[in-house]
Structures are given as structure tokens and as C-alpha cells.
């Protein structure tokens, strides 16, 4: 059965388009009067003029035949009946109807398809380079050619210290170890650079750094945002999946396929029975499913659940928007409410994409073998004991409540008590009045359910107090044995019912137009709907079709978009300056041929990210110094054409991780539940519900890498918020880099920085006891990957000479320097 289905999806049979037939009918049957003659002001020879209409107003409402004057006229609904002499045949009417309902396109595949980003990239020839010594790789040839065109001269190579610091911060988000700096500077083997890059790429620190980049793109967070800020208990599994994928150099096409349709592509491996161990192939496919977690971590507000249809529509919107920006580099979001104003993307395209996700829903699945799962079930007695102890404790609390209620009731008349016991909706006005004061007294005491008043504080007898304490102790013991929930992942699965998707109006969730079938944006070749079996037991595998389409080697956007992102993360600027917008509102590529060459080469190299990094980082372009040059600067001040390396500021995570690393306390433990670091009282004071920040109890955890910290949508981690951490509402293509006083305050005065400066001071003092020169040198090497100059050292030592000044103050200064914060 499965095989059959796969065949159907792999070889879709497409229905014929209707625009040509419709145009023929208009030309043959209508244009005689409504052509050049423009009878009653209507001209049917152009889509625009039909839209504009004639004396009676617009003749056409794309997507809605029933409301279109043109259709009403040919079908003879209402007073206008056309053509007057000989009505259209039933077949012709059906063509007109279908054409209007499908959006009334005038030509195929779609207007505007000539835009460069919508053409499959063609691998251009690598330009000839006159200075072959400079050109180390094809990347250099493209850059060199453009520099020549603009009369720009490339900057000389950066020195080795600068290079290893740049490459380490780039690939790991951490400065290099002083010993590694020393080794590299003195490594005169011809392949020194190659071995450095390979070593950096092989370290798990690489996945932590580059996984974090991807998490920006997929708007990662551990909670849903808004008031209750629901906790997504398995979001971290997706985060770990991303990190592992980068570390394993998972081919990017696989990475895309897994996130969109891991479940649909490897459906046979969803059953985890058959032994104590899950076999490796199944583990691999389980991992693929966890990739679909990408669609379960978007913003969701609690009360959205009050309206199922709206909740579903918002979820679909988030799925389409994120898919569009992350994989296609297109701002589909514009076309939720109306046809895109700048790109040939229609509201219908948007809803076709929605329909792809419409049959999917979030589900929690076990990530352990069936044997282990049964093991959980066999451990049930401890779970029951937990329940029993909880209920026993609640009974004691209820006794106290009941006593307090009776005491208050005793102060009122029996009539009032009686009236109060009548259900609110059945009370007579007299009863209302009688019950009111009692109700108020109970509210004040916190004794009415759901009523907002003071919290009830139970009073226990000595016996109750003893019993309760014993029960709480027993509850604790039982909890240690109990296993209430099994380890799970939150993934996409097929819904039991696949809801239809309808055109909507201005982004409102309520259907306001015809039903829409699943499909891809027409301008990208998705002229036809996805073919699906209308009957039969099959679940439509729409995401699978989307994943395969996106990862086809000739897709015009997928490879270009990711190589551009990688370029941006390396250089601080993309070849296309707007990594999430390859449309007409985005910036034009500075090096279109290079972009296409890289995209093609990427696909030919098996979509390998690590090969791409190697290609870029071993180029002379990447090796250039960031030093400016007057004549170049006059021509290209913003360094669009890369005549030098861009200087970058550490981002929030690199900054925190580097400080911890330099201080010698970074905990390199990988993966697992989010780490929740402590907050100061001031930081915590503005949180709506401070109990939503349960601090990790193991202090060692607080020094974990930043990628593992709790990402709470309604409360950004304060230090990150100051350093331009992205908003997690939607995909973030590139981070802002701002320079403001609160950053200086945080780096000078925060408890965190003070502690780490002390740690750094202790670290160098321990390594070089009683040698102040060595302290300064050690601190410089750790923080700046170099020795201090004689003047710098002298300045540092005279600072230390001042009364009461300790080494930790010098370390704090060092961690505040522009040099520490910036990457040359």
C-alpha cells in the first residue's frame, strides 16, 4: 500500500491550466463589443481593464466567480445577460468559472517570473585572474574580478594571530586557546590553514555556534509567549537536533527534508518496537522526525485555544511564513492578506501553501523503545502512590477550608446560607440579595473558587499538621520512584481529519472565498495543484511533496538562500544583503555570479555545509585583513565589494560564552533541558509570573554555553536583550548591531561580569603565582590572543600599583576593551 502511494506522489499528474481557454473565450465571444469598441466602458483585452470594469463597476473579482459581474452575466444571474445573441455553452461557462476562481491569471506560469531569483542558477565560468598568487580558490576569482571592475585593491592578508582568532570566533563563538594560537603562528607546514579549519570544523563547538545561527532563522524559543507563556517541554530536542545536524555535516537537503517532512519521508520507522535497543536506522529516522519540531515552537497564546479555527489558521500562517523566509528566502507573509505588492506571489499561493500544512498537527511521541515504554507502564505503583498522597494532603486542606467556611456562615442567617447554596443562575433577586454579603465575606477570605481575592491560608490542628508533614515526606519519597511521563519529542504528525483551506479576506481566519488545493507558489513553477487521490485510505503526504520540491537540485532558491546565509554569517554581510528576502524589495546581489557558482557547487558537493565553510574560509578573500585603505574607502566605504574583511562585534551569545571561557569556567556539557540561570531581584521584578523562571539548582549549569539557556518569549534574558538578541516572534535573518550605554553598564557593573573578572584574575594568579608581569601577559593572551605591548603592560602595572586596586579590576577593564569585543 505504501509503495503505491509513494509512486502517486513522486509522479504527479497535473491538471491543465485554464487561463488560455478563458482568454480564447473572452477574445472570441466578448471582444467584438468589449474590445476596441469598449461598449459601456468595458475592455476585456487586458486583465487590468477587466478588473477596472466599465460603467457597472469592476467586472472581475479574482478568486470569486459568484461575485464577479462577468460570471453573473454569462451565467445569466441578475439583469445583465451576456453575450446578448448567443449564450456561452455550459463548458465555456465552466472554464470562465474555474478561471476566475483560480485567480483569473492572464498568463502562465505567472507574471513577474523573469526575476533573477526565480530562475534556476546556472554555474558561471570562473573568471580569469591575472594575479594567480592572490587567487587561492574560485571564490577569490569572482571577488578579484569585481574588485578590478571597481578599481579596488584587496587588503593584504591578516596576520596569523588575527586569523586564528577570527576563525575561532566565527566557527565556535569562542576565542582560541593561547596554546593553539602559539602552535598556529609557528606552524610553517604548507597545510597549516587547512588543518586549522578542519580542526575547528571537527569540534562539537562548531555545531553549537552554527546551530544557534539556524535557531535565529526558525524563531526558536522554549515557550509560546504571551501571558501564560506556555512551556514547550520538548523544544530542546529540536535545538539539540539542529546542533547535532551541523556537527554531523548533515547534507543541507536532508536537513530541509527532515524539518519539513521527516515523518512522511521515512514513515516505516515510526514504530519503535523490536528489542531493548532502537536500531540505528530507526534512530536516524526518529531524529528526522524530531526535525519537524521546527513547526511546533512558534508563538502561541493560551486563549487562542478558545477558537479552534483561529488557532489552526494562526498556526498555518506561522508555518507558511517561517517556511517562506527560512527555506525560500521570500516574504510570503505579505500575501496572507492580499496579493504581494512587489513579488509575483498571490494570496492564493499563500493559501495553497497553507493547505500543504493543513493536514498536520503537533503530537508528542515516545523517543524510547517499546520495551522501555512498557517498562514505564510496569512502574505504575509508584505513580499511584504519588496520586494517593496528593489526594490525602488535599483532604486535610479541604477540612480546613470547610471549617473556615462554616465559621463564616455561622455569622449569617440560615436564609442567607440557604440562598448562597442555590446555584447563581437559579437565584431569585431576593436570594441574590441575601447571598451577597456572605459571598463577599467568603471571597475576602479566599474561600470561593475562581473568585479573585486573598489567598486562603489554611489553619491546621496539631494532629492535621503532623499528618500533613508525614504525607508530604511520603509524597516526596514516592515521587523519587515514580515515572509519570516517558521521554518524548514534540513533532508533526497527520491529523485524523484534513481540514479544507479556503481563501480568506485581509488575513482574517474565517473562510471568505473558494476552497484552495495544496500547491507551491505559481511563479516558482507550482502552476498546478498537488495531485492527490480523492478517495482511498491514504493520508495525503503534502509536506513530503514540498520537501522534495524544495530540495530538487534545480530549485531556484533553496541553495542560493542557504549559501547566502553562510556567507553572511562568515562576513557579516550577505551577497544578497537581505537573507530572508530574495524578492524585489530585497537587495540585489553584489556578486550574482559568485552566488550562483557557490549555490551550484554546494549542490554538486552533496549539500555539505562543512565543505562550503572550507571553501570560503580557505580563500584569500576570507584571509584579508580588516584594515582600511584610503583610496579603497573613497570608492566603496561600506565595503560592499569586499576589498577587506568586515570588522564585526561579538553577538550576545559569543560575548557571554567568550567571557566564561576566558574566565576558565565555561561548562562544555552539551544538550538537554534548557538551563535557567539565576536573575537579580531587579531583573526578576518585571516578570509577570516570577514562578515561570525555575532556576537550575546546580550552579555548574549556570556556566553552560548560551545556546542551552532558556529562551522565554515574554522575557528575554536581560544580558542578551541588551546585546541585540533577536525577537522570537518571526524568523530573524540578520542581527542588528547597536552600540548603546546599557551595554557599557552591563559590562562594567553587572554581577556576572564582576564574577567572571574575578575568575579570570584567579586563573592567571594561580598559573603564575607572584609574577605580576606574567599575570598581565596571561590575561592578555587569554582575552586578546596576544601578548601586551610594553606600553600596555606598563600601563597595566601602574594601574595595579595604585592603592587597593586588585587584578580583577584590570581583568574587568580588559573584558570591556573594544579589542575584546570586536573581531578583526
Amino acid at each position, binding site marked *: 500500500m505504501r509503495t503505491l502511494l509513494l509512486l502517486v506522489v513522486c509522479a504527479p499528474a497535473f491538471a491543465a491550466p485554464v487561463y488560455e481557454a478563458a482568454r480564447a473565450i473572452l477574445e472570441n465571444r466578448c471582444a467584438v463589443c468589449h474590445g476596441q469598441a469598449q461598449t459601456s466602458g468595458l475592455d476585456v483585452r487586458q486583465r487590468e481593464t477587466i478588473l477596472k470594469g466599465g460603467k457597472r463597476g469592476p467586472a472581475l473579482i479574482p478568486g470569486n466567480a459568484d461575485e464577479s459581474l462577468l460570471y453573473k452575466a454569462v451565467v445569466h444571474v441578475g439583469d445583465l445577460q451576456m453575450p446578448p445573441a448567443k449564450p456561452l455553452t455550459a463548458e465555456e461557462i465552466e472554464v470562465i468559472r474555474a478561471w476566475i476562481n483560480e485567480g483569473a491569471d492572464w498568463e502562465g506560469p505567472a507574471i513577474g517570473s523573469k526575476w533573477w531569483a526565480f530562475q534556476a542558477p546556472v554555474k558561471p565560468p570562473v573568471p580569469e585572474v591575472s594575479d594567480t598568487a592572490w587567487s587561492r580558490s574560485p571564490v577569490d576569482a569572482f571577488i578579484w574580478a569585481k574588485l578590478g571592475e571597481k578599481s579596488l585593491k584587496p587588503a593584504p592578508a591578516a596576520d596569523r594571530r588575527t586569523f586564528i582568532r577570527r576563525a575561532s570566533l566565527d566557527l565556535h563563538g569562542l576565542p582560541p586557546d593561547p596554546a593553539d594560537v602559539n602552535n598556529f603562528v609557528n606552524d610553517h607546514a604548507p597545510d597549516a590553514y587547512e588543518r586549522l579549519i578542519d580542526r575547528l570544523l571537527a569540534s562539537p563547538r562548531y555545531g553549537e555556534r552554527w546551530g544557534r545561527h539556524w535557531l535565529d532563522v526558525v524563531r526558536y524559543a522554549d515557550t509560546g509567549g504571551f501571558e501564560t507563556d506556555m512551556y514547550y517541554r520538548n523544544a530542546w530536542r529540536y535545538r539539540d537536533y539542529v546542533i547535532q545536524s551541523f556537527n554531523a555535516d548533515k547534507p543541507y537537503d536532508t536537513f530541509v527534508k527532515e524539518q519539513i517532512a521527516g515523518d512522511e519521508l521515512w514513515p516505516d520507522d515510526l514504530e519503535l518496537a523490536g528489542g531493548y535497543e532502537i536500531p540505528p536506522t530507526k534512530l536516524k529516522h526518529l531524529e528526522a522526525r524530531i526535525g519537524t519540531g521546527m513547526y511546533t515552537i512558534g508563538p502561541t497564546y493560551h486563549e487562542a485555544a478558545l477558537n479552534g479555527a483561529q488557532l489552526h489558521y494562526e498556526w498555518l500562517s506561522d508555518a507558511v511564513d517561517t517556511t517562506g523566509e527560512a527555506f525560500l528566502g521570500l516574504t510570503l507573509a505579505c500575501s496572507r492578506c492580499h496579493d504581494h505588492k512587489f513579488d509575483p506571489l498571490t494570496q492564493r499561493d499563500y493559501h495553497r501553501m497553507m493547505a500543504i500544512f493543513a493536514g498536520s498537527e503537533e503530537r508528542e511521541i515516545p523517543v524510547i523503545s517499546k520495551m522501555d515504554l512498557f517498562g514505564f507502564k510496569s512502574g505504575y505503583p509508584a505513580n499511584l502512590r504519588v496520586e494517593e498522597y496528593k489526594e490525602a494532603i488535599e483532604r486535610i486542606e479541604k477540612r480546613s477550608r470547610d471549617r473556615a467556611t462554616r465559621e463564616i456562615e455561622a455569622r449569617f442567617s440560615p436564609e442567607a446560607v440557604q440562598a448562597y447554596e442555590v446555584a447563581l443562575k437559579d437565584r431569585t433577586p431576593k436570594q441574590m440579595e441575601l447571598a451577597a454579603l456572605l459571598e463577599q465575606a467568603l471571597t475576602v477570605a479566599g474561600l470561593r473558587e475562581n473568585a479573585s481575592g486573598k489567598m486562603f491560608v489554611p489553619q491546621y490542628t496539631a494532629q492535621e499538621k503532623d499528618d500533613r508533614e508525614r504525607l508530604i515526606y511520603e509524597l516526596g519519597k514516592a515521587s523519587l520512584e515514580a515515572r509519570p511521563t516517558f521521554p518524548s519529542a514534540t513533532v508533526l504528525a497527520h491529523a485524523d481529519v484534513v481540514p479544507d483551506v479556503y481563501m480568506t479576506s485581509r488575513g482574517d481566519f474565517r473562510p471568505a472565498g473558494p476552497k484552495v488545493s495544496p500547491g507551491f507558489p505559481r511563479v516558482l513553477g507550482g502552476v498546478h495543484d498537488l495531485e492527490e487521490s480523492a478517495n482511498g485510505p491514504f493520508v495525503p503526504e503534502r509536506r513530503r511533496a514540498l520537501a522534495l520540491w524544495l530540495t530538487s537540485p534545480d530549485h531556484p532558491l533553496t541553495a542560493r538562500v542557504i549559501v547566502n546565509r553562510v556567507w553572511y554569517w562568515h562576513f557579516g554581510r550577505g551577497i544578497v544583503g537581505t537573507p530572508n528576502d530574495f524578492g524585489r524589495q530585497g537587495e540585489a546581489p553584489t556578486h550574482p555570479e559568485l552566488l550562483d557558482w557557490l549555490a551550484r557547487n554546494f549542490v554538486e558537493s552533496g549539500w555539505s555545509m562543512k565543505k562550503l565553510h572550507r571553501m570560503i574560509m580557505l580563500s584569500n578573500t576570507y584571509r584579508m585583513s580588516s584594515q582600511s585603505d584610503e583610496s579603497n574607502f573613497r570608492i566603496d566605504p561600506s565595503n560592499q565589494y569586499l576589498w577587506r574583511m568586515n570588522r564585526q562585534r561579538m553577538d550576545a551569545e559569543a560575548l557571554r560564552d567568550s567571557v566564561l571561557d576566558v574566565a576558565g569556567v565555561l561548562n562544555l556539557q552539551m544538550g538537554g533541558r534548557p538551563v535557567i540561570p539565576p536573575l537579580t531581584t531587579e531583573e526578576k521584578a518585571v516578570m509577570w509570573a516570577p514562578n515561570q523562571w525555575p532556576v537550575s539548582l546546580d550552579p555548574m549549569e549556570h556556566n553552560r554555553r548560551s545556546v542551552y539557556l532558556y529562551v522565554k518569549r515574554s522575557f528575554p534574558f536581560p544580558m542578551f536583550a541588551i546585546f541585540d538578541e533577536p525577537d522570537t516572534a518571526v524568523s530573524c535573518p540578520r542581527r542588528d548591531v547597536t552600540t548603546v550605554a546599557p551595554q557599557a*553598564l552591563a559590562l562594567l557593573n553587572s554581577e556576572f561580569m564582576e564574577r567572571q573578572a574575578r575568575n579570570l584574575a584567579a586563573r592567571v594568579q594561580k598559573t603564575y603565582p607572584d609574577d605580576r608581569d606574567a599575570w598581565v601577559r596571561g590575561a592578555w593572551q587569554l582575552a586578546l590572543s596576544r601578548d601586551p605591548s610594553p606600553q600596555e603592560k606598563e600601563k597595566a602595572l601602574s594601574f595595579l600599583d595604585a592603592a587597593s586596586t586588585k587584578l580583577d579590576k584590570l581583568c574587568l577593564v580588559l573584558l570591556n576593551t573594544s579589542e575584546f569585543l570586536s573581531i578583526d
Partner: protein
Amino acid sequence: MKNTDQFCGLCEKTVRASSRREFLEKAGLGFGMLGAGYLLARDADAATWTARASNPFAPKPPDFPAQAKNVIFLFMHGGPSHVDTFDPKPLLAKLNGKTPPPSFGKVDFQFTKMEKAPLLASSRTFRKYGQSGIEISDLFRQTAQFADDMAVIRSCYHDGFTHVLGQNWMNTGWARVGRPSMGSWVVYGLGNESENLPAFMVMLDGGIKAGAPAYGSGFLPAMYQGTVLRTDGAPILNVNRPEDIGAGEQRRMLDLLNWYNERHLETRQEDSQLAARMNSYELAFKMEMSVPELANLSQETVATRKLYGLDETETAEFGTQCLMARRMVERGVRFVQLYSGGNKGGSVGWDGHNQCDQNHTVMARRVDRPIAGLLADLKARGLLESTLVLWGGDFGRTPFTNGVEGGGQGQAGRDHNPYGFSVWMAGGGIKGGKVIGATDEIGLRAVEDKVHMHDLHATMLTLLGLDYRKLTYHFQGRDFRLTDVGGQNNLAPRLTQG
């Protein structure tokens, strides 16, 4: 399906001022300059460009002469009932206990099925105040003394019927998260006039339900987000030096830092970011002085402290916020937002689901005197003319009782009502004594001269001298506005006329 082309004015193609962009780059200001899109759209002169490049907060000229320079936004967290405060509904008294007549239509609420919910008369007494005779209830009898300075807008509406949606609508002009807040837009548009204080400051009396996004910068750069000013502990995060570092020692540290940074800069002169970073340390050092100075109320006279209600337990907290707000405005802080009713120890704020009248009596008692004090003080100091004071909340409340048949909540409560509610404005060029718009006879829905949040925001921006249609930021492939495609009912021209 409607053809939406004709009413999506936002998506008009923006003309790319390439020559200007080129000029910027020639001038060495770089592609990363913040807010360039907006400035490109405005015909700013070279001096503005240069100032903006070295300091993105540099004050910017408005689009046209401004009436207001500053805003103080008093936010009643939880949603104050309009029918008990600024929108009297005598019919409610007549229909008390009866279900709403079907003629008022049916709408959805969070907990209440309105066809089964008995109408609830207000227990408040309304009186006409001032020469204008605006009717205001006794909950705000002191604030009401300024009726002739106020424009009461009784026809506000949006469609977010839960707190976070309401708070997002009011603050960011959009129900969901991700959009910049009003304060961020204003600072983005006008810059900062203060040299040593943040331009957008927020004071809270507890956590708010919408959280940081209510005063966040959304898709604008993070530097435009609101800074929380506290009355306990460090007034601004990290503004207090660590205990073991004295001012003298920190100065020496900064001098050393400067010395190193200058060496670093020597070979990197072209990088304006490095110079900006060095400046930011000097500004930080100034803030360590200016912020405690701002927060120190000891220089205020006994009479002033009394005016704001600092002498009474109930009014001391909000009074302190209001007094700080005046001090901030005096020091050039552009946008101040004060919250009443945040969560501290389980407080529900203005969320009167249960015993609404009791709840509002307590809450209004806390804010009425401080607000009146603020208005009086601003007026006396000549600051009210240039300071727009805005009062509002998440939404209004229902004219009927809360949750009968719905959530099992208590008697005499009122549910959330975003379909019609009141806000008021004073100062900032407004000629007071005006009532704008009306709700229906029971206060369920705005019916006359309706004012959407986009209209309210357009009004505010106009008073500040900003053209709400031009204040845009390019994001996700299009130019976003605070007012989205709305703002057509911009009240500013009417409010500023006598």
C-alpha cells in the same frame, strides 16, 4: 473574496532614494546605519545625517511643527470599566438585572455569554465637571477637576478580548507579538533630547501580562526598547556600581579602558562603531550619576510630595511614579509609561471580573490623586503644553455581569470589553473640554466617531509632529507603520482646535 488592492495603502512602492543612499556611503556613514529607510523617506539635511550616523539617538526635527514634545502614558493594567469612570450610561440603571435587549447585537467575550448575562448598573455617581461639563464618575473626582484640559474619547475599540491581546493592541497597534511599541516608534522617529537618560522609560508596579514586548522594540533595533526604571534596588539595570568599586576607582578604570581603546582605534579610524562604543562608556558613567539623581525625590518639597499623594499609603506608590514621570519629562525623556495594576503578590490590577465596583474603588483610590497631582504640577510648571498625558488600559469592561453561565465567576463583576471603551488625553497641544465619539446606550460598542487604536496612535504621532504615514521601518519585505493601514480618523486636527 474582496479585492483588497484599493485599501492597502501601506504597500505603495517606496521610492528608493538611491542618490541619498549613495551620498551616505560616500560620506562614510555606512550601510548599517539605523533607520536609514525612514530618514531617506524624509527630506533630512546633511547635518541630520551626520548627527544620526554618530549617534542614532540624535534629536531629529519633526515632519511638521510639533504640539507635543513628550508623552506620559498612564496604563491601567487589567482594563478599567468605562461605564464606571468616563462613560455614563443612565440606561443601565433602568435595565439593571435584565439581559441585554437583542437590539444591541451579539459579540464574543472571554468568559461571558452575553445573551444570558444580566446588565449591571454602575454604582458610581457621575457629575459634570468644569466649564465644559464633561461627565466623570466619583472614582476620578480629583482628576476630573481637569476636565477642561481633557479630551475624553469614548469610542475606542479593537478586537482583542484577552489581556495580552488588548495590551498589545494598545501598545503596539497589533494583537500579536513582534511589533514595536509606541514609545519605540516615537524615539525612532524623534530621537532623544536627554544626554544622559534613556529616551523611553517605563515604570511598573509589578509584572504585566503582555511582558516585555509591551514596551519592547519588536522588529526595530533593540536600542529603541523601553528601559524599566525601578523604585527598589538599582533604578536602571546595572546602573549601580559593584559595591567594592568606588566612583574614583571606576573613573580610573575608565581612563585605563579609554587609553587601550584609543590605541586600538588608532589604526581603525574609519570605524564609527568603535568611537560610538567609547562614547557609550562616557554616557554610562554619566548615567551612574544622572539616574540616581533622577530617582532621588528628596529635593522635592513637602508640598509637591503631598500634591502627588506621597503622604498616604494608598497613593504613595503610583504618586511616586507620577512624580518621577514629571522629573523625567523635565530632563528630556521623550516617552514615559506608567503602569498601575501589575502583578505583585497576586494582585489582579484593574481586572474587575469579580466585584468590579469594589475592585475599581481600591484601584482608583491609588491613582486618582496622583494623576490629578501630576496634571496640576505639569500645568503649574508650564510643562503640560508640551507634554501629552494619555490615560487608558487593555480595554473597557462589559455593561453586564461577568461569566454567568460562563466561567463560574462572581457576582457584580464585569468581563473584558474591547468593542467600546474610553481613553483620555490632556496637554500636548490639546484644547481640552472635549468629548469625542460615543458608545451605544449600554456602553457595549463604540458607535459614533469610532476611534481604533490606529487612529489613537495616528493622533499621538501627529501631536508629536510626525506624519504617521511616513514613519516606517522596512522589515519582512515591506515598510511597516505603527498605524498599519489605519489612522484615517486622526483626531489631532480636531483636538488642537479651540
